[in-house]
């Protein structure tokens, strides 16, 4: 089956230099995918109506899993029967999204036979999204996928598919094994991933360094971000090469040949002002460095993170629903991340127990911390309060003392008071 509907508006999107999804979908329709032809038709209708044409939700899935499939039905199925059902399957991507084409073709083949031919590479959480399946295809797709060694990702009030930056695989700044952490956690928590049993969703994202290339600090309930606690490694010869203009500023990010003014572009922009350059030698007062990465980014051939590496754990990032967006907050300033990550996992279990016990329906852990207080959370995780957890100490005087902190406790008799103070 080929193109079925006139799409004058969508056709406008075939123009211009950026690759056109419309042209692409048309090609897939031409290649015989009815769903694609109808998808274009329904989308054109949306462009006319300025409203989407999908029904609300729909409970579909595969047996034994509570998630991994998002049900979707057209609200104009008569006109576009090819997308009457248009469910998505979230297929758990390999950590950091390297693919061997041979393995990827396993999915492509299944999807070609049983699905719409449409995908998102990738969804915002990181999954491979198979976009547009009929209900009766879900189980067969699942069976074939698992037989080939692929599994579904998360949805609903469950652990969501963890994801990570490229890290040590192709980046010199990876302070932790982002991919192994991502994979290990995914494997360890398969049950949490596939069987929603929590107040709401929970996301892990793993970045190898504070540049945070997987945006974990904005998008994951638990961010694991690589860092170091010793000194930045300096190659003074390379510093001189930057100073002399032989090496391009910022790893060429501003064009090859861009000369770095070390004082102005590096030292002056260091947030802690802990660097000094005398025209020859660069000095860093590492004790004051907050490991922001700026200087390293600017001079990748001269500076490198230290070698005593680990991760900073931040908790609570999320989008605005309900109480407004949050970013992750530092809970563990530094933790060694070494396989099998037991110390980290113990922390995770404590955190989840507390959330599970106290969280209301559809309350993310970040919101629960907001509601019950950061201190309560820290206590539940059996951590000591330390100033690294906050930007600044409280400025309001409203401290909730507990009875056991105050000599004599809270119980008092008004009669005693009145003995000293007439009414």
């Amino acid at each position: 089956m080929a193109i079925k509907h006139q799409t004058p508006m969508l056709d406008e999107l075939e123009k211009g230099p950026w690759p056109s999804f419309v042209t692409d979908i048309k090609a897939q329709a031409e290649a015989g995918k009815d769903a694609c032809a109808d998808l274009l038709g329904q989308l054109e209708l949306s462009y006319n109506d300025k409203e989407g044409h999908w029904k609300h939700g729909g409970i579909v899935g595969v047996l034994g899993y509570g998630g991994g499939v998002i049900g979707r039905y057209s609200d104009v199925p008569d006109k576009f029967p090819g997308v009457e059902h248009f469910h998505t399957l979230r297929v758990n991507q390999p950590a950091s999204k390297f693919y061997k084409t041979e393995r990827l073709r396993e999915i492509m083949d299944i999807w070609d036979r049983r699905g719409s031919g449409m995908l998102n590479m990738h969804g915002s959480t990181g999954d491979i999204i198979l976009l547009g399946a009929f209900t009766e295809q879900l189980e067969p797709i699942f069976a074939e996928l698992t037989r080939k060694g692929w599994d579904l990702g998360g949805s609903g009030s469950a652990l969501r598919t963890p994801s990570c930056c490229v890290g040590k695989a192709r980046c010199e700044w990876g302070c932790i094994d982002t991919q192994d952490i991502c994979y290990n956690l995914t494997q360890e928590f398969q049950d949490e991933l596939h069987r929603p049993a929590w107040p709401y969703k929970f996301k892990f994202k793993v970045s190898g360094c504070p540049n945070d290339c997987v945006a974990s600090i904005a998008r994951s309930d638990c961010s694991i971000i690589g860092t170091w606690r010793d000194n930045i490694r300096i190659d003074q010869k390379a510093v001189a090469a930057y100073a002399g203009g032989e090496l391009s500023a910022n790893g060429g990010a501003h064009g090859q040949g861009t000369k770095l003014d070390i004082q102005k572009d590096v030292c002056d922009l260091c947030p802690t002002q802990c660097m000094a350059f005398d025209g020859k030698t660069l000095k860093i007062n590492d004790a004051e460095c907050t490991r922001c990465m700026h200087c390293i980014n600017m001079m990748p051939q001269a500076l490198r993170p230290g070698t005593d590496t680990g991760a900073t754990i931040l908790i609570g990032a999320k989008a605005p629903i309900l109480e407004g967006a949050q970013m992750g907050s530092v809970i563990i300033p530094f933790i060694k991340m070494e396989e099998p990550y037991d110390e980290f996992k113990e922390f995770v279990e404590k955190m989840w127990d507390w959330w599970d016990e106290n969280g209301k329906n559809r309350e993310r852990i970040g919101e629960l911390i907001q509601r019950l207080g950061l201190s309560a959370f820290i206590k539940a995780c059996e951590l000591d309060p330390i100033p690294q957890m906050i930007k600044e100490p409280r400025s309001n005087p409203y401290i909730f003392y507990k009875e056991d902190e105050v000599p004599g406790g809270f119980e008092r008799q008004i009669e005693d008071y009145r003995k000293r103070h007439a009414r």
Partner: protein
Amino acid sequence: MADMAERITDIGPPKYDEMWPQIIKDNYGKWAHHDLLEPGVMVHVSESGAKVFTVRCGGTRLMTLVHLERICKIADEHCGGFFRFTTRNNIEFMVDDQSKVEPLKKALSDTGVLPIGGTGAGVTNIVHTQGWVHCHTPAIDASGIVKSVMDDLFEYFGSHKLPAQVRISLACCLNMCGAVHCSDISILGVHRKPPVIEHSHLDKMCEIPTTIAACPTAAIKPSKVDDFKSVAVNADRCMFCGNCYTMCPAMPLADADGDGIALWVGGKVSNTRSMPKFSKLAIPFIPNEPPRWPSTVKAIRNIVEVYAKDANKYERIGEWAERIGWERFFEKTGIEFSHHHIDDYRLAMTTWRNSTQFKFTK
């Protein structure tokens, strides 16, 4: 349905290293530094001296098997059958020798649909969501707007001429399935009409207490309408978040006139120099203008151009706006300031100006 006995479950994804080309396997954790040879092309150098050359191409994210097969074929022919996607849905092809770069680039060029770029101080791919292609709550489309904006900003995708990286993202509703709340520029689909209520079916389709509890501003109350148990929405307290609709299909918000785009600026995720920042409201509302959303496209270009001209090198949009002051940002971009820019939600008071320090503007 497959026999339960045979079912394979909980196996997780394939292990990552199975997907690695040899050069990555050999040099895992040994990379020493990198260099962007030209926009879209980078080299990473290992402590061993080995090099991997990466060519990055713009990805449409929403794609078909036709396109994915095209990508696989290039990977097969040039990269030993390996490639990867970036966290922003670009496609990266890696080769282990500089001599393989030009042939690879040519092959990519020849497709016409794999533009090279997205690195360094430019605009990379827009992170986006489903829009009218799949989701049930969108106020806007996703892919169509992304295409229109990327067409317009294409010159910045394949070049390194901005003061710093500019990360644009799009989410089609307030659920914000993407880092829209922390992006240099964010395109956000917003509703502006309270839910229209299907009283005759609400009680059947929804749990009334959960629906009421879903509203962050307590705008929803139980109500009886024509003998139907239903709910009523206090329109004055509604800020169109759509959370009620998420819980209850009998309360749709979508509306051709009500829905459109809000633009946000100055967010960032990296811990580089300044701490991560939320995006701030730039333009509260631009109508939906399919198929090419010209007003949105123009507004974004204006912000990018004013920024490009005015910011210091190595300064992200949010760092620039804070340095010059938001009052100056509005003046320089010519964006109108309105009541909508003044926060009135929970932490509003932290955004007021508690100082005589400000700049005069025209």
